[in-house]
């Protein structure tokens, strides 16, 4: 564990928790957001018969870094009519809300910011902070487009949290713990122990669970897509209607914070799906490190598998974004309230019955 390692090293608990909370951020998530932006541009370009960025570095690999450097240099425009304190806090809140999620996500068995027992609960709760940030941004910009974007966004995020939480509860009934590391450990071994394949449960219950777990996975994936404002649910920032929604008025580094938060969020929700249904950091076929007797290799392999699965889901998000049109705001609500929530609820009941067996 990273926290124990640092508390032994420094002898101070405070220092250790600060380091272990920030380490994933700087080692993984910030670089990931940079890579994801580039990846998105490249993926979309190749889907559309284009080349994408090609000028900065080999095949444009340094493009995002150039973009960030440009954004840092840009003037930070605050209009006279803006509500300045809220306007300044909003991007920080959104950024913090998105990045705080990573503090509780176990990237591998020994690389975990904070091994709290309420990990899953913490993630669901802290990502609610984003809604406040978005509402603030929309309101403080003093612009009708941003206000509409923020209203849509708040309605959407809050609505779609309900099916997400229902599926989380479904998983909770099977695993019996909210600790993300324990949830992951329950899925150790080979891929048939993953929760989407019924988890590591003896007897017939495992096989009965499979269809309902699959339904749960589909629902949580759809609702997390909505939570990160990706197409077909990118209504809050619907470019063709609301220019760019709640962050229309932002420029420079504040815009970059929204932007990076969005990409960090993409990985965060993929990570949650991976943790809950796809075995977390566990390899689908056992570890090379165990076979070779090199125990230090195992965590590295786990980090690889976690990133691999997470980026896999991020790629699916990109694929959907560049394929599908966007729903209208009332249709979006209809999808949530008429289909996802009732199905999630029935799913919850049935999984409850099965686990009682």
């Amino acid at each position: 564990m990273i926290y124990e390692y640092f508390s032994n090293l420094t002898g101070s608990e405070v220092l250790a928790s600060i380091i272990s909370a920030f380490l994933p951020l700087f080692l993984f998530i910030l670089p990931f957001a940079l890579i994801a932006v580039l990846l998105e541009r490249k993926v979309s370009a190749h889907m559309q018969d284009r080349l994408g960025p090609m000028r900065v570095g080999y095949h444009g690999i340094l493009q995002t870094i150039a973009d960030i450097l440009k954004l840092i240099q840009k003037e930070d425009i605050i209009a006279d009519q803006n509500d300045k304190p809220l306007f300044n806090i909003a991007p920080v809140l959104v950024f913090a809300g998105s990045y705080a999620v990573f503090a509780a996500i176990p990237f591998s068995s020994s690389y975990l910011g904070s091994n709290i027992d309420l990990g899953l609960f913490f993630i669901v709760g802290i990502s609610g902070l984003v809604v406040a940030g978005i509402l603030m941004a929309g309101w403080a910009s003093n612009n009708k487009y941003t206000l509409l974007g923020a209203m849509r966004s708040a309605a959407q995020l809050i609505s779609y949290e309900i099916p997400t939480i229902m599926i989380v509860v479904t998983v909770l009934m099977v695993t019996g713990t909210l600790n993300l590391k324990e949830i992951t450990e329950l899925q150790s071994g080979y891929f048939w122990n993953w929760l989407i394949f019924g988890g590591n449960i003896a007897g017939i219950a495992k096989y009965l669970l499979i269809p309902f777990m699959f339904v749960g996975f589909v629902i949580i994936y759809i609702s997390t897509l909505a939570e990160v404002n990706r197409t077909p649910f990118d209504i809050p920032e619907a470019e063709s209607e609301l220019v760019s929604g709640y962050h229309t008025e932002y420029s420079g580094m504040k815009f970059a914070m929204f932007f990076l938060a969005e990409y960090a969020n993409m990985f965060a929700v993929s990570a949650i799906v991976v943790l809950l249904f796809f075995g977390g950091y566990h390899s689908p076929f056992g570890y090379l490190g165990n076979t070779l007797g090199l125990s230090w290799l195992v965590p590295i392999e786990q980090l690889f598998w976690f990133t691999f699965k997470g980026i896999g889901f991020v790629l699916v998000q990109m694929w959907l974004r560049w394929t599908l049109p966007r729903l209208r705001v009332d249709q979006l609500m209809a999808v949530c309230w008429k289909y996802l929530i009732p199905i999630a609820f029935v799913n919850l009941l049935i999984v409850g019955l099965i686990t009682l067996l």
Partner: protein
Amino acid sequence: MALKTEEMTLNMGPQHPSTHGVLRLELQLDGEFIIDVTPHIGYLHRCFEKHAEFMTYPQVVPYTDRMDYLASMYNEFGYALAVEKLLGIEVPDRVEYIRVIMGELQRIASHLVALGTYGADIGAVTPFLFCFRDREKILSLFEMASGARLLYNYIWVGGVSRDLPPEFLRLTKEFVDYFRPKIKELNDLLTFNKIFIERTANVGILPLDVAVNYGITGPMLRASGLKWDLRKNDPYSVYDKLEFEIPVGNGRMGTVGDSWDRYYVRILEMEESLKIVEQALKQIPEGDVLSAIPKRIKPPVGQVYGRVENPRGELGYFIVSDGSVNPKRIKVRGPSFVNLAVIGELCKGHMIADVISILGSIDIVLGEVDR
């Protein structure tokens, strides 16, 4: 206690990503719902009609290009036909066929922009780029023939500016063969997408009587169910020698005259245009294209109204001549301008997102609305 609510006025444009140019829409909103839409136009007004009074007849041709800049060939085509009618000259057969080929390729190119941007308005960006990729091939053909990619100055009064390059017919045939499967690709990707249908079917329904009252023409009128196409109803050039169908909207996904119908009529029209181009390529005769171009255009005193079926509807030129080398008056009946007028009727009771999708389905070009 009932909460007091107020209507919100939202100004959309002239700088907005999806008003297709510098159109300003003033929306009266009740929450997300539209109470009223008022279009404000004129941001791109360039006094085309007044300018034309100080030009000689051939000098007007490049100005017509700049009206509907997505269908420049067809603007020249209409102008040339009107002036020829005034002069009473016949043009060689080869010229007629070249004009028809150019016109129909232009129709495909224009519809590709319309369909692609429509997809982008709804949130699907990839079809937009696919459409532009295919449009690029047509632009290359035009560039080959005329030397320009957007504003061609190719179709002149009495002929065309130069004969087709030797490779042109073969490359056009290649394009026709290349493009057929691409329509199917677009259908798979966008037309029959469930979300796309949800967004467009039963949205912005234009009943036939309203359409006729507003003087709507082109794909919009046909989507409302009337088989009216000047290429068939008032044939000009060699369209009477070519076989093609006129697609009409039939309410396949919702109601007749909804946005999806308007979109789908354009898809079907592209297929018909391909058919026309194919036939024209087979029938095109050899000959001189410059022989009928008059050295000096000085039409007799009189007036004429010439009209063609532009990709967006009826494009009419009303030209008054006082017997001098300059036209006394040119009035353009632009389809985008007339079609745009109906937007208030279409949007009532819909949501903000639908305004964008309805505006996209009208397919306006602001260059021609404002002229």
